[in-house]
């Protein structure tokens, strides 16, 4: 195709001639104004969660593991959402859960990105045997469903918070690796990377200055998706009783601990709602993140999905 002066026709190409120059702030403001209600809703929800996670000790009426001698207390003024099987205040544990469950999932995702991201860029830049080696290992790791793999590893190493973070981060890093490698490959073949190499720039300069800034937007989207996945996996493991361990307040294990109450829905609706609260807290956050990510994707894919 290098012969033709023109690239393939695209409506976007014809119109982009008219593209005006805008500042970053204007772009952000325009973006927010054009955001659909679902995305705005998502952003507000995420902000609220972050607020609760940061200020949990100030907002919670009682301590995280404070035990009252009243187990399964009904909803009341004293215990807004009642107490659990050991007599701990459900509301306080919900608020601390924002810090623990979301925090652990966030830390895991960050770790997964550090591992998978740096391996992905390295593989894309070096190609050759190193790329082959990492890619093949990742293929094998991804041939086992990650929840199953996590279960195997937990049975080997035991369920502690550190183990959990490490195990899920390593398993999730495989997905991050694939995405980073793919987007980096698109950047590595760009002439400006070749130009930098021709200039004699070192590997780390090329990685930091030429590649990283250009793969950031797709990686941010991927971060949202991976976070949801990690968050749901950890919640599932905790729900199964092999994830975050008591007495740490965590939404997944809270569902498990109070699940029995759901049988009493006919007699006391509020009691039946108790296990639903942490479950809903998990669901709401993932919905919110997904809404924002969906909007981002829609925006970055441009016209492709428009008509």
């Amino acid at each position, binding site marked *: 195709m290098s012969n033709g002066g023109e690239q393939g026709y695209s409506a976007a190409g014809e119109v982009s001639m008219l593209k005006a120059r805008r500042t970053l702030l204007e772009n952000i403001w325009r973006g927010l104004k054009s955001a659909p209600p679902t995305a705005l809703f998502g952003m507000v929800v995420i902000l609220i969660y972050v607020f609760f996670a940061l200020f949990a000790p100030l907002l919670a009426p009682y301590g995280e593991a404070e035990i009252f001698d009243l187990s399964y207390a009904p909803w009341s003024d004293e215990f807004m959402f009642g107490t659990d099987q050991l007599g701990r205040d459900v509301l306080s544990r919900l608020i601390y859960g924002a810090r623990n469950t979301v925090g652990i999932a966030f830390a895991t995702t960050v770790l997964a990105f550090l591992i998978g991201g740096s391996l992905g860029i390295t593989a894309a830049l070096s190609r050759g045997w190193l790329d082959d080696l990492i890619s093949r290992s990742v293929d094998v790791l991804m041939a086992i469903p990650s929840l199953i793999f996590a279960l195997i590893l937990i049975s080997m190493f035991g369920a502690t918070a550190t183990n959990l973070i490490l195990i899920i981060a390593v398993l999730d890093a495989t997905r991050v690796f694939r995405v980073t490698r793919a987007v980096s490959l698109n950047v590595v073949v760009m002439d400006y990377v070749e130009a930098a190499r021709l200039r004699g720039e070192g590997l780390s300069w090329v990685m930091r200055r030429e590649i990283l800034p250009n793969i950031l937007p797709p990686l941010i989207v991927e971060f949202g998706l991976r976070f949801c996945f990690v968050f749901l996996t950890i919640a*599932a493991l905790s729900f199964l009783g092999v994830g975050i361990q008591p007495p740490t307040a965590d939404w997944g294990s809270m569902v498990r601990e109070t699940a029995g109450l759901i*049988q009493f829905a006919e007699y006391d609706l509020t009691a039946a709602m108790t296990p639903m609260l942490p479950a809903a807290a998990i669901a709401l956050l993932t919905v919110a993140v997904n809404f924002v990510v969906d909007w981002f994707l829609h925006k970055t894919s441009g016209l492709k999905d428009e*008509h």
Partner: protein
Amino acid sequence: MHPIVRTILQRLGLGLVTLFVVSLIIFSSIEFLPGDFGQAVLGQAALPETVQAFRTELGLDLPMHERYLDWLGGILTGDMGNSFSGRGSSGGADRSRAVIDLIAPRLANTLFLASMAAIISVPLALFLGITAALYRNSIYDRVVNALTLTTISFPEFFVAYMLILFLSSFTKVFPSLANISSDATFWEQVYLSALPALTLTLVIIAHMMRQTRAAIINLMASPYIEMANLKGVSKMQVILQHALPNAWAPIVTVIAFNLAYLVVGVVVVEVVFVYPGVGQLMVDAVTTRDVPVVQGCAMIFAATYILLNLFADIISIVTNPRLLHPR
């Protein structure tokens, strides 16, 4: 050799290698157990001789490659060793059961549950996905899109408890516990497994519908589809003649991916509904660190997953015109 045969053989070979490496990983999990695990399994009161006998039974004093071959041979002939649970502290009272006997009846249950979910969800998801793609940006598409986006964001247990709340606690339509037994009739089993199957169905439909929609939209954006439109081919014929022959590979990939997803989803759902399947067995075994059972269950899940993906790849190869009609 026809290139298609060669490609399929290559893919099969790769699948075998993957299975082999995966089995190696799963096997090695026993290596990482702490040194005193024999004591832990058999109880503090276990005599040193009993512990030694236990180690010999596991073959821990043999070199690793011998044990691996032994273990692999066992798996291939249906012998997965014995469970750790039920081991007595003294030599004579070994009430442990063979892993295969634990897994076999539960595997049937799990397969029953998964097939029930698959039979409903696959056709429904394909229908929803294809129609949403064809009527893109219509109200219908937007509604389906928002609903499925919400559903995939829900943890499986949230969906499950919502269903229990509405279909069991309030209305008593279905039982909340799916404690099926082998002497129940087929329709009793269907009735008892209705809620777990419904949970799985909802989750799978959402995932699958979104992927189908994306695959079809991607396909419909091809220049040859636009060319067909410019040739005045009717909408129906564009889909049947021009899109469909090229759609098999992406659609089969989506189906296989989601059936594989079902394999994982089944674990949580089984625990919620106390459904006697392999998933629940595996979770229990992980909690008690009953390694042989974990290994057996993991092997089954991993093999299913790998085989499904292998199957999808082969369908893609077989329907690829470039491979079917080499230059």
